[in-house]
């Protein structure tokens, strides 16, 4: 059974896709896991990192993106669900059967969710019921891959789409990357309330940190008093990974997809050690 891990934050530009891909590479290369990356973000950044622009265009042309998967299978029509998977993606080599498979993202994901809502609304007039059913159905569709993989990584969009909510609900752990700055504390609190299904911060903090389903990851960290100040503020109320990802051009460069495989150390260059630390800490937490 696959372990479901979401990477989410309602704030954009915090490094969600970069972190999601980093974890996918680490789990496959170092952990020898079969990893499924589900790109739930209509920006499709993790797809770009894993298959490049041309690979993504091919998936769009073949109608094998995540939006197509949800739309085609929503009513229970049973095409082969493996048709929507792109196997052996990414530019990092992994041993044996390990590797990354991708359900490519789609610019149309939000539109398709609207259509699914309309479809579902023929069965109920209550918007909350309709929304809940769409979300539940999407969750079910994602969950169907659990037997074929060791880990499923859900790269969630910043907005609160049905797919994002389904992803956050489905995940056993949600990694919340954040930039150490003023607005990030508010963003972290909102995703924390969502993950823990609580109405306010006080209710979230009643849950012991080690029992919460989310973990914060400080990203773009510089060795300044200001960054330390904001990280301390967030860590006071939220579970925080000890590993911090530095502000480093090697991380930005890892966004570039190459057609040939290389080692994970080569891909992440100067930050490969940080990626390794993140992988080791996270796998200890999730017991992978």
């Amino acid at each position, binding site marked *: 059974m696959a372990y479901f891990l979401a990477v989410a934050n309602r704030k954009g530009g915090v490094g969600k896709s970069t972190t999601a891909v980093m974890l996918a590479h680490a789990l496959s290369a170092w952990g020898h896991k079969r990893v499924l990356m589900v790109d739930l973000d209509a920006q499709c950044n993790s797809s770009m990192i894993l298959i490049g622009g041309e690979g993504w265009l091919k998936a769009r042309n073949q109608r094998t993106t995540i939006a197509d998967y949800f739309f085609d299978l929503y009513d229970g029509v049973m095409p082969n669900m493996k048709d929507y998977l792109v196997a052996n993606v990414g530019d990092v080599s992994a041993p044996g059967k390990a590797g990354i498979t991708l359900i490519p993202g789609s610019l149309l994901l939000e539109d398709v969710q609207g259509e699914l809502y309309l479809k579902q609304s023929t069965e109920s007039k209550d918007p909350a019921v309709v929304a809940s059913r769409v979300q539940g159905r999407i969750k079910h569709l994602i969950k169907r891959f659990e037997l074929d993989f060791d880990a499923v990584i859900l790269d969630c969009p910043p907005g609160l789409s049905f797919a994002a909510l389904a992803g956050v609900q489905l995940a056993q752990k949600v990694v919340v990357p954040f930039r150490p700055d003023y607005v990030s504390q*508010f963003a972290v*609190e909102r995703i924390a309330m969502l993950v823990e299904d609580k109405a*306010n911060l*006080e209710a*979230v903090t009643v849950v012991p940190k080690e029992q919460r389903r989310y973990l914060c990851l400080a990203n773009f960290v510089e060795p300044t*008093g200001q960054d330390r*100040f904001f990280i*301390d503020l967030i860590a*006071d109320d939220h579970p925080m990974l000890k590993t911090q990802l530095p502000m480093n051009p090697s991380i930005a460069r890892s966004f570039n997809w190459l057609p040939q495989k290389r080692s994970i150390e080569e891909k992440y260059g100067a930050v490969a050690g940080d990626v390794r630390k993140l992988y080791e800490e996270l796998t200890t937490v999730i017991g992978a």
Partner: protein
Amino acid sequence: MSKLIGKRKREYLSEVVRQDLDLEAVAADRLTERLDNSIRSLRTTKEQRAAVKLPPMPVPRSAPAFDPYAFNAILMLKRQGRDALAAKLGEIGEVTHLRQLAEAQLIGLDQVMRVGPVAIEDLREAVLRGVERLVADRRAAAS
């Protein structure tokens, strides 16, 4: 390079004193005045120059630079309460340092508290209220 005389000389001295010496505004003004007078005296006749006695120069403080992140005011208020934070702020004896702390830790102060002449006790109280406001704002935002 043109000669520094009159108002320009005064401005130059003031700038040097404020940049290089860690002094309160009043002390900095007094020192600038004394240096200005001394230089004016030096520019008198040779005989007079011989008689001029320079005022003793204040020794720049060698204390380490103030770290506005040395403690986290918000966390101190949350964990240890108002009195503890008030006591900690009480250890900061310079208006400029309190202002640096407020700026670094995003504690909002009004215009007078930020740049005007203030009593240090009033500034400490304003910082304290600013920290309380930050904590309340964050709680409200997450509800």
